[in-house]
């Protein structure tokens, strides 16, 4: 009769959580079996061969190659099978399903900024629908952070200067802890937020409410800066990049397909990574038929603005 609510086990709120738990406790169990056998043997030897006992000590062995090879080989086979099991789960973690909703996360000392596909933004909370794969594209404005949701058993470092990606599918509605797992400075322990998992229709409702509250400019929450299309004009993208089908100095962004052919003849995926790089380091991969004239926007665009622009350009192509 315990009234004390002692937590032993974190809730399993994602598809991956089940896999991880089965795996982890499987390995711990296996290890404990071997460990306990060794400890029992050790204790029994200590008792049996204590110096004041009369146990049989004739023919002591101090070398036995077959035995050595056996207890080297069996654990080796065991760990190799563990490896296959673990690699399988891990590989899945980096293979987001194609129907995943893409959300952006920006880590900053000491808060999480999150942006939904239609521009809805929030800080330190992540509203998301249940039973729907979510892909997070993440970056940091300053130091390394790490996006960690214990209930989902997922974690991914958030690096400045590049995107990292993770995905998960929540299976339980409710609030889950969102933590920063990489030490990031003074207020590290306060870089804490919530993941709020909702039924899909509630999530839709939440999104709509957010939008009505914001009025006409759907992509810009109150008090925050600017929307993607406004940025597109303000930062001068529109000077070279046409969005109406005509040809400008730069590639027509509306006409860009799922792949871009480069002047080197290579093809690259037209994804967030490529778009981000094209803004930060335009010379790196130049689209075929265009000159190397675009200036860098490094230092000109905050990570938030880059994400707004990426989303804006993606919308031009029908959200792909």
């Amino acid at each position, binding site marked *: 009769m315990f009234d004390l609510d002692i937590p032993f086990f974190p809730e399993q709120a994602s598809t991956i959580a089940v896999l991880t738990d089965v795996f982890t406790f499987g390995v711990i169990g296996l290890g404990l079996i071997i460990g306990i056998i060794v400890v029992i043997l050790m204790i029994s030897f200590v008792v049996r061969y204590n110096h004041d006992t009369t146990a049989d000590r004739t023919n002591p062995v101090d070398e036995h190659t077959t035995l050595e090879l056996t207890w080297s080989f069996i654990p080796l086979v065991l760990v190799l099978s563990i490896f296959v099991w673990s690699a399988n789960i891990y590989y899945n973690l980096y293979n987001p399903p194609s129907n995943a909703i893409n959300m952006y996360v920006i880590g900053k000392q000491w808060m999480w900024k999150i942006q939904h596909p239609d521009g809805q933004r929030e800080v330190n909370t992540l509203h998301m629908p249940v039973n729907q794969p979510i892909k997070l594209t993440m970056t940091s404005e300053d130091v390394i952070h790490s996006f960690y949701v214990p209930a989902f058993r997922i974690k991914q470092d958030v690096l400045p200067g590049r995107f990292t990606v993770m995905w998960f599918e929540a299976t339980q509605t409710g609030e889950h802890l969102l933590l920063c797992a990489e030490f990031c400075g003074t207020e590290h322990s306060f870089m804490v937020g919530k993941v709020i998992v909702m039924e899909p229709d509630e999530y839709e409702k939440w999104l709509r409410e957010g939008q009505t509250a914001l009025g006409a400019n759907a992509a810009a929450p109150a008090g925050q800066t600017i929307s993607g299309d406004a940025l597109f004009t303000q*930062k*001068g993208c529109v*000077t*070279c990049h046409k969005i109406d089908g005509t040809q400008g*100095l730069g590639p027509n962004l509306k006409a860009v397909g799922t792949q871009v052919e480069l002047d080197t003849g290579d093809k690259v995926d037209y994804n967030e990574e490529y778009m981000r790089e094209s803004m*930060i*380091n335009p*010379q790196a991969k130049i689209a075929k038929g265009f*000159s*190397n*004239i*675009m*200036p*860098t*926007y*490094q*230092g*000109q665009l905050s990570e938030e603005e880059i994400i707004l622009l990426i989303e804006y350009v993606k919308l031009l192509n029908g959200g792909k």
Partner: protein
Amino acid sequence: MSLATPTVDTHATGHHHPEVRHQFDDLEQQHDSYSLGMWAFVVQEVMFFSGMIVCYFIFRYKYPEAFIAGSNHLNLPLSTFNTVVLLSSSLTMALAVHAAQLGHKMRLLQFLMATLILGSIFLGVKVYEYKDKYDHNLIPGYNFKWETESTTTEHGEATDEPESLNPALKMPPLAQQVEVFYGLYFILTGAHAIHMVIGAVIILIIMVLAWYDHFSPNYYVPIEMFGLYWHFVDIVWVFLFPLLYLVDRAAAGGH
């Protein structure tokens, strides 16, 4: 090489060469120990430089254009001259060890002197190169400026427009990447130069010891060990020279 404490009574062998330290049985064991210890030290030094050279490779892989641009901006004739100087100093050092083996005191001193002079020439040229970088605003993190010639010359009229739209335009990433190259250049050559300076000081000490007849054909371990150090410093340069100065010279016909 006298010992502070006579320890003959504790030795199983009882008779000791005066140049053998108390912990060793004989000259051969002493020589082998010093030699192995020095090689372990060289291995340590190899790993020390490998840390920096790994950084170099990572960034060369990430920023190939910047490395070509930055490298082609370095002074090749001067550095080739310096390479020859350093290789020569390695030769004179090897000859100094040779002279010590044969017990030729004056030749030993002459070769050590030659090594010292060649090392100083190398360092002098290095100082000149650093000064030159300073004059051309190529000190990363301090006064670094990099003109991106390719964009302005090839598409002169086109670049004006976006720049005028963004008056606060910072350095393009190519410049930042070249800055990383120059950062590595200074770190690598700087670490190498520090090793040279330490080497030069040790040569001076060895010369004084040699002058006072400290060494003999039986006992020249310090000279031999220092030779290993000096040759190692030379090897570092053998790698630094092509890695820093010779990145794709063919690609930069225009420079």
